[in-house]
């Protein structure tokens, strides 16, 4: 190898250097002595955070935020965000006024301050029951969190945690769902579904699912192109089960709505095929959602025909036979779907005046020909 190549090799190998590598390099080159090596870790840091909270540190930060300069506000927002990393103190953060302060700090001019305060709110909401917050606190956080999602300079972790927080708060009431939609949250969340990061895509999909059955979310699903994406997410259970679970849940809920336009879009989409495929995926949660979706879709004769073609009853019968506790709800939903499918077939045959044969099985399932 020529000597210049070895140089390039060293250069390119070290260009994407991580902090750990940098520290190691400093240690090797004796710029950092063994004694100076930092042994601080997340566990010790968590312990310090709990000590701060015990000593009323959050109240101290809240007091400091009154009349503080922009730079001080940045430090306060940073401190609160870092404190919120420790899940056990998030309740105290709300109790001691840290949450309220973050809402105030998120309305300031400094980008850093706004980002850290919003991130702190997102982190806190991940594990907090929205019911313990006051109505203004619940509603007030929505615009703040959505604004952070639009900030492309934020790290993926911030987007992920804020999406989880938003998902949690969206599940609380229709008022919050309306607020998210009113703040143009649908567009933002849809955009996040195309993130490079798997967890961000997953959290955005879960959040959108929690917006059901808001009329704007229903309108969103009426679009055939959007449904294609949802079907693709639901189908792709092998690469990410939670995203598929959320998408399948959303589709199943959509099937249960009495919206003729949406039902027409669902019939035109690949939803029937996706549900039947999911019955064979082996994941109880996904199968449950697929069975519920099939049950709802039996209201449409076109869908019943599709299910017949796809031999959905055989798959449903296979699920209905499962006895283990984790499959209980899936099996029950499969039985219901199977019955609904038979009933729909019988009524279709009666309507068409053609003979039908019903064969009852020992476990209560039956077959129609």
């Amino acid at each position: 190898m020529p000597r210049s190549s070895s140089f390039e090799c060293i250069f390119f190998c070290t260009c994407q250097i991580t902090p750990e590598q940098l520290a190691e390099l400093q240690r090797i080159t004796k710029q950092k002595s063994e004694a100076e090596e930092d042994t601080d870790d997340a566990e010790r840091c968590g312990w310090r955070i709990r000590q701060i909270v015990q000593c009323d540190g959050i109240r101290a930060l809240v007091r400091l935020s009154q009349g503080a300069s922009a730079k001080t506000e940045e430090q306060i927002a940073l401190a609160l965000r870092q404190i919120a990393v420790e899940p056990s103190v998030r309740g105290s953060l709300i109790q001691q006024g840290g949450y309220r302060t973050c809402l105030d700090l998120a309305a300031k001019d400094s980008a850093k301050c706004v980002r850290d305060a919003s991130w702190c709110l997102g982190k806190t909401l991940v594990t907090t029951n929205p019911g313990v917050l006051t109505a203004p606190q619940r509603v007030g956080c929505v615009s703040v969190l959505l604004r952070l999602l639009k900030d492309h300079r934020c790290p993926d972790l911030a987007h992920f945690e804020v999406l989880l927080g938003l998902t949690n708060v969206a599940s609380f009431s229709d008022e919050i769902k309306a607020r998210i939609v009113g703040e143009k949250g649908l567009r933002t969340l849809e955009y996040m579904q195309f993130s490079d990061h798997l967890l961000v895509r997953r959290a955005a999909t879960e959040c959108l699912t929690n917006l059901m059955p808001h009329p704007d979310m229903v309108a969103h699903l009426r679009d055939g192109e959007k449904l294609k994406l949802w079907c693709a997410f639901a189908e792709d259970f092998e690469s990410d089960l939670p995203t598929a679970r959320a998408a399948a849940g959303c589709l199943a809920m959509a099937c249960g709505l009495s919206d003729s336009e949406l039902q027409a879009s669902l019939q035109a989409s690949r939803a029937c095929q996706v549900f039947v495929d999911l019955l064979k995926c082996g994941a109880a949660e996904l199968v449950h959602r697929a069975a519920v979706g099939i049950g709802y879709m039996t209201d449409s004769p076109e869908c019943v025909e599709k299910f017949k073609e796809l031999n959905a009853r055989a798959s449903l019968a296979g699920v209905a036979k499962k006895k283990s506790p984790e499959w209980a709800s899936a099996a029950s939903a499969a039985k219901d779907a199977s019955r609904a499918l038979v009933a729909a077939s019988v009524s279709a045959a009666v309507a068409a005046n053609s003979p039908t044969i019903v064969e009852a099985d020992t476990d209560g399932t039956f077959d129609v020909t």
Partner: protein
Amino acid sequence: MSNTFEWQVQWCSEAAPSWAEGSGSSMAERRAQQDGERQWKKALSLRAIAVCKSPINLSMFHLLDSSIVAERALSLAAYGRVMIAVDDDDEAKSLLATLAATTTRDLSHMRRKAALTSALFLAKGDLGAWFLSMDGAVNECLALIASGDEIGQTVAAETLCLAASNDSGRSLLAPVVEAGTLDALLDSPNARARSAAASTMAKLGVASKALTSDSSDTGRLLNTAMMLLKGAEDAATTDQTTQTLSQAKFAESVSVTTERAVEVLAALITKSAVKDELAHGSGRCAMGLNRLCRMAKDGKGAAAYGLAHIFASLSVTNKEVQERLLAEREMEVRISQLIYVQSESLLFLLIFDTVVWDAA
């Protein structure tokens, strides 16, 4: 006299009229406003120069050593305002040259000069460094500290503390460090001088990266900072009528001591060992965190930023800070940085040798 000072300060820092501020919509408007701004600055500068050349200057200088605290503070602020208004540093230096050149062993004069240096550091750091670099200025500070005079010690220690915040000022402090003056001041009964010395040492230590977790200086500074916080808290809870100092002086003293203690802790808090000691508590740091929490009254005080910084540092590991800083700057370590990291290593020599060899 205070009215004269206030009038003079307002005259030298008068808000710009409408034609000299704001931002116009068109290019021509903006240019006209920039010209106006320049003219206004020039006018304020001429006013400040006029003040410095008038007899008021001498009165201001004399009042820097007034027995009344409020007068001292007022003349200090007035000097600062006037010097900020002078837009040409050379002009400012020529105005101060006479005062700077005067060296004397008179305690009052030395106190005034030290106070003036503080005012200059606060107004324009480089001007303060220039004033301190004049013949005998640092020695006068040392003499003031050695004199045992309470006001003199305080003023001189605070001047050194301000000098330690300035790049040019730090280089002038070598004789102070060598003489062990700061070390001696850490044991002084004068709390303000002690806090200023601790703050100076912390700033010098941080700047020179000499403060390691296991160094004795770190321990001593932490000890001093905690003692100062304890003293300030005890003093604040003591019935003030029993104090010999006047109420204003007492309150100012407590506030300044607290600010300096927070300043020292803020400088030391980047060390993981200090973080743990503060949160865990030790002989010297018992109730340290509680004290800091109680100290946070509102965001208006000068210590607010320091306190917020301490809480922010306590709740994070240094590794996370490093990662955040790298991410914020979207930094990929470049070759120049890599070579810097490797500057003392054999690897660097190997690469350098390779490049030179290839170039040849």
